[in-house]
């Protein structure tokens, strides 16, 4: 059990939609890896179906989505639904990029656990994931 607790957090990073700007997701990928997490990248131009399949296939703990395209109000809820339907909604679903304040409530209601908008500090993102991971392990141990 103790050794399993030390297992590094596995994170799938993905770009949904046709927007292919990757500076943000690259910085996040480096920061998570620097913090000791395992990072898997899906490639560009992913559909919710492709991301859901990859999340299950790669057996990740966290799915991190970068979106700079206005399609997020459709694609993110769809991804949350697909994960739920596949029984994979124990995975933490987080998103970042250009997401206006007024969309946050809708996305959180649809099953996105946390949204990091443009300019978020990578240290805050790392801290959030680490604390979620700790809570999750504690719950499972209990």
């Amino acid at each position: 059990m103790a050794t399993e607790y030390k297992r590094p957090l596995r994170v799938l990073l993905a770009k949904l939609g046709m927007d292919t700007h990757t500076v943000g997701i690259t910085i996040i990928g480096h920061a998570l890896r620097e913090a000791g997490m395992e990072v898997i990248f899906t490639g560009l131009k992913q559909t919710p179906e492709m991301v859901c399949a990859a999340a299950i296939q790669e057996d990740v703990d966290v799915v991190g989505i970068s979106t700079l395209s206005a399609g997020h109000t459709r694609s993110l809820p769809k991804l949350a639904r697909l994960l739920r339907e596949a029984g994979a909604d124990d995975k933490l679903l987080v998103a970042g990029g250009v997401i206006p304040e007024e969309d946050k409530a809708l996305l959180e209601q649809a099953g996105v656990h946390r949204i990091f908008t443009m300019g978020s500090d990578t240290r805050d993102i790392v801290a959030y994931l680490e604390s979620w991971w700790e809570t999750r392990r504690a719950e499972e141990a209990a």
Partner: protein
Amino acid sequence: MNRPTGPLVPPETHIAQEAERWQEETRGPAVAARSERRDRFETQALKWPIKPLYTPADLDAVGFDYMADLGFPGEYPYTRSNRPNGHRSDFWTMTQVTGFGKGEDWAKRARYMLDQGLSGLILEYDLATTNGYDSDDPIVEGEVGRAGMALDSLEDLDKAFDLPFDKLKYLMSVCNAPQPVNLAMIIAALEKRGIDPGDFVLHIVNGILIEYTCVGRYIYPPDDGLRIATDCIEYIIRNHPNWAPISIISAQLQPAKANPVQEIAYSLAIACAHIDAVLERGLDIDTVAPYINHFVVNVDMDFFEGICKLRAFRKCWARLMKERYGATRPEALKIRMMTSPTTIALTLQQPLNNIARLGIMATACALGGAGEAMTTPLYDEAHALPAENAIRVGAAIQHIVAYETGVAETIDPLAGSYYVETLTKQMEDAAFAELDKVFAMGGAVKAIETGYIQRALGREQYERNKDIEEGRRKWVGVNHLVRADEEREIEIFRLDDAMEEEQIRKVRDLRGRRDQVAVDAALEGIRDAARNGANLVPACLDAVRVYATHGEMCNAMRDVFGVHSADSQLMGI
């Protein structure tokens, strides 16, 4: 030394000795009394140490030689300027990229811009188009007509070209991966309207190799991407010699955090890959180089890095063409640059501050020689659709730099600055070292296929983001002079479902009424050309004329070339 009196040592050595004395007697005590504001002074992107003082001894140390390194304007190696008279006869061409609305109203907006006296337009397409899909492909749901014009068939482009072509002298089309399809569609649309292609300049961006290193609007594997681009370049050189078949958008590498050395090295390596591929088609370097020398180059906030980069760029291109290829024509030895302040220096916070940033960066562009043209982004670009006010200010910035500052009254006014010449020379040397490294790997395509360039950029992105997060780089409004009460507003495009549905209806309707047998045969023709190495443009022209759609033609090439997908390694993550 051939002088009757004076020091017994060369003057640079004498100055070096004097500089040491100054350090010991004058500066040393001053710094001891009042320590410096920073632990390290360094250039922003390259992180090269900046000395407190530069003297002729520094020029000596880097082996600076006036005639070899600078020469004279309009002459090899063009460091001082491409133009024999700098900007004393004409300023650079002042242009502005302002986004032209979406979908079918492009022609309306374009007519308006032409009526305002503009003679050049930039045609940008939506992400469905640039990624090679039709509007009704489920994968592009929500993207249709958003980031530019939706283009499914010749019918769409025919409507967009309802323009006064007597006023239009220059049209840039930004469609990288599906370039032969797009080129064929433009040629067919001109034909349909009876426009003489010799009457204006079509400039296709066609810079696919950069897309694999950053931004990512690629479809096919890199070597196929290069072949496709080469088909377009060869077709244009042979059939429309007054057109421009490529732009190396170095300004895509810069926002992906390429430092000036990486930017010069990678964009030149990419240009060489294109040149080599066209030379293999039996053309000579003095013919080819003037077609591949169109670059778009950004300048960032580090004033001297920006200025020196533009100077080093001109010289590196000239040297490369002469030393690697033996080019001799001045048109081959001169790089043509469009310069621009970078958008990544602009902040979402306190957007009016961006006007100051744009003014400073535009001044740096001008001091670096400006290029043939300059374009300025808009101060509110980071957070909203450009407002009219921002468009006016954007245009005014270039006029203020040109008419009010005096920086363009003499040619290359910073030449001879000990700091500027040291930095220019160091950049040139480092860029050639990095370029040689890429050549040793087998060139740009190999450096892309192994992920070398992507990983280099990925590291820069991470490190420079850390500089800001950890406060080593101060950025007003972001980590310095931050106003706690500031309200941030991001205005983003909302999906226009009606427009998307209309576009989908149109393309489906077209498929129902065209000659499907002819379309199938033409698409097979594209597959044949892709397989047997024939130029793809004529095959695409045949397909365009029978109303094959953009996505169908891109799919025909997908059938043969396959698609490129990048994992972490190839993404530099």
